[in-house]
């Protein structure tokens, strides 16, 4: 079943702001990244998906249902984690998540059990009986995730789940989202501005810009090989360049790396043998891939920086 499907979806607000324009997209199950939509576009799409607002044109289906007419069904199968703080400081996590489970239609006893289980799965143990007000940002993000997960939704909408976290918290949250997608078997749509995070955890990606679809594709299709090998050695780069060129390879120096055109598997052997013959240290050898960031790069201005930055 398609997670979210839209046809010529348009949303224009009272003031004339066009948040979404002619958006036709079909989001398949998996961990899906939603990028590029800053402000209006992103939150508008979430509100449309939850049936909180009506589109001005076109249509949207969530899990095959119309969020405007099948409000209850859609919302009981969707979990939503907002970007900003949304937790009452004077309740305990256990109490709050239980309450939210009941709000999603879980019977009282089930809500209590599932709240406890869900909090354990997101990594909150004894702390769950303390008031949320005393939690760290990382713990609060976990509670926000737990309340979206407590009723076992088919689809989880996560809005900037790593917002405000430091590197360690970020990594933990990403691991969690990935687990939800794979182990728990729940489809996730995650909004993020950080393309590296998207690349790491998502199976597919939807890029929206100016309210329009920029691209929707699987991540593997977006990060295909470029047909270029990156080679990094410690010293005597010139000698290696000369050597590879002599073997008929096309070589370009960029920053600390050599970019070698990949012709066929023999290219690998030529590089290996050149390194051995020159008695060099090989620090890196890899197929260069396209990056999600290429989507947003201006063809002229960005290309140079784009390649250097990966050095």
């Amino acid at each position, binding site marked *: 079943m398609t997670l979210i499907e839209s046809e010529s979806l348009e949303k224009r607000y009272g003031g004339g702001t066009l948040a979404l324009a002619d958006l036709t997209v079909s989001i398949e199950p998996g961990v899906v990244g939603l990028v590029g939509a800053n402000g209006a576009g992103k939150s508008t799409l979430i509100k449309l998906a939850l049936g909180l607002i009506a589109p001005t044109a076109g249509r949207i289906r969530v899990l095959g249902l119309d969020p405007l007419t099948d409000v209850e069904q859609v919302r009981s199968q969707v979990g939503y984690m907002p970007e*900003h703080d949304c937790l009452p400081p004077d309740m305990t996590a256990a109490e709050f998540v239980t309450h939210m489970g009941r709000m999603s239609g879980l019977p009282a006893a089930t809500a209590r059990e599932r709240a406890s289980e869900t909090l354990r799965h997101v990594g909150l143990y004894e702390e769950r009986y303390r008031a949320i007000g005393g939690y760290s940002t990382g713990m609060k993000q976990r509670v926000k995730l737990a309340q979206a997960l407590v009723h*076992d939704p088919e689809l989880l909408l996560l809005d900037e789940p790593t917002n405000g976290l430091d590197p360690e918290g970020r990594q933990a949250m990403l691991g969690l989202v990935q687990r939800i997608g794979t182990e728990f078997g729940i489809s996730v749509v995650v909004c993020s501005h950080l393309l590296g995070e998207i690349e790491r955890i998502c199976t597919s990606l939807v890029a929206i810009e100016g309210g329009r679809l920029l691209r929707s594709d699987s991540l593997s299709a977006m990060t295909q090989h470029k047909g270029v090998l990156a080679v990094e050695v410690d010293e005597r780069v010139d000698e290696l360049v000369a050597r590879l060129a002599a073997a008929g390879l096309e070589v370009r120096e960029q920053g600390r790396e050599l970019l070698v055109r990949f012709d066929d598997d023999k290219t690998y052997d030529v590089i290996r043998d050149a390194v051995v013959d020159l008695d060099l240290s090989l620090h890196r050898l890899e197929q260069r891939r396209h990056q999600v960031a290429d989507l947003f790069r201006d063809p002229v201005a960005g290309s140079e920086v784009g390649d250097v930055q990966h050095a």
Partner: protein
Amino acid sequence: MSSTPEGVIHDIGYQRYQGQRLGRRYAMWSLYVHSLRTAFGLGRGFKAKLLPWTLTAAAGIAGLVIMVVGTQTGFQLVGYVDLVANLTYVAIILLAVVAPELVSRDLGSNVMPLYLARPLSGTDYALSKLAALISSVALTLGPAMVIMFAGNAFATKDGMTGVLDHAGQFGQGMAAVVIHSVVLAALALPLASLSGRRIFASTLVLALFLVTAPIAEGLAEFSDNPEVVGMITPANLLQGVDNWLLEGTNHPVGVWGPMHGVVTLLLTCAAVGLLLLRYRKVSA
């Protein structure tokens, strides 16, 4: 019996939920129960319980004193219905504390998006909260009525007729409790929902009831129809309604009774309308 060692690893991984999902009505009921518990500080610390329980106890003690004096001396200080009116200030303090607790907290800590992403709508949310607030006022005032009736019915010297007489008065008193609870809660909740800061919300609620009272009094001095100008303060308005609809009250409003009734009805409807409008705006 085999003696081979046995072992098993249980799956405590994530479990999908196949059971039933109850709908909107259940969510509303749950929210109502949750809010009512919150109103009386159940499941919370001592501080949250202090005020609502003190007020309920105060109202109960008032009923007890009147009942004891009445049964011992034969002189009833205040009737059932008038006691409810006299307890209006207790209700107002309760509302100033509980109404913000019920709605401002959710607004202030930004919990609304989490509710609205769930089956229940903004209107459902507002109505559940209103029902909880009405109930909490009724639960604060009601016990006083019960105490008065129980004591009087027990002590009556007129046998069954005495009991029935008090039952009638008790019924009138409970009707007043219901009317007062609905009207006061309906007026207080939209005010409290204007601010996410509890202190502001409390101030707004108190202002409605406490600022209008002296103004009404001042205006009454210069007016030919003090009953009419009195309507600008909810306490007087409700007394007028009591006098019109119920028996045994001491605040006659004469021919103005129906007008009090109509104004109260309009005011209540307007307040509920505003409340619903407010929560429609929260959702979009």
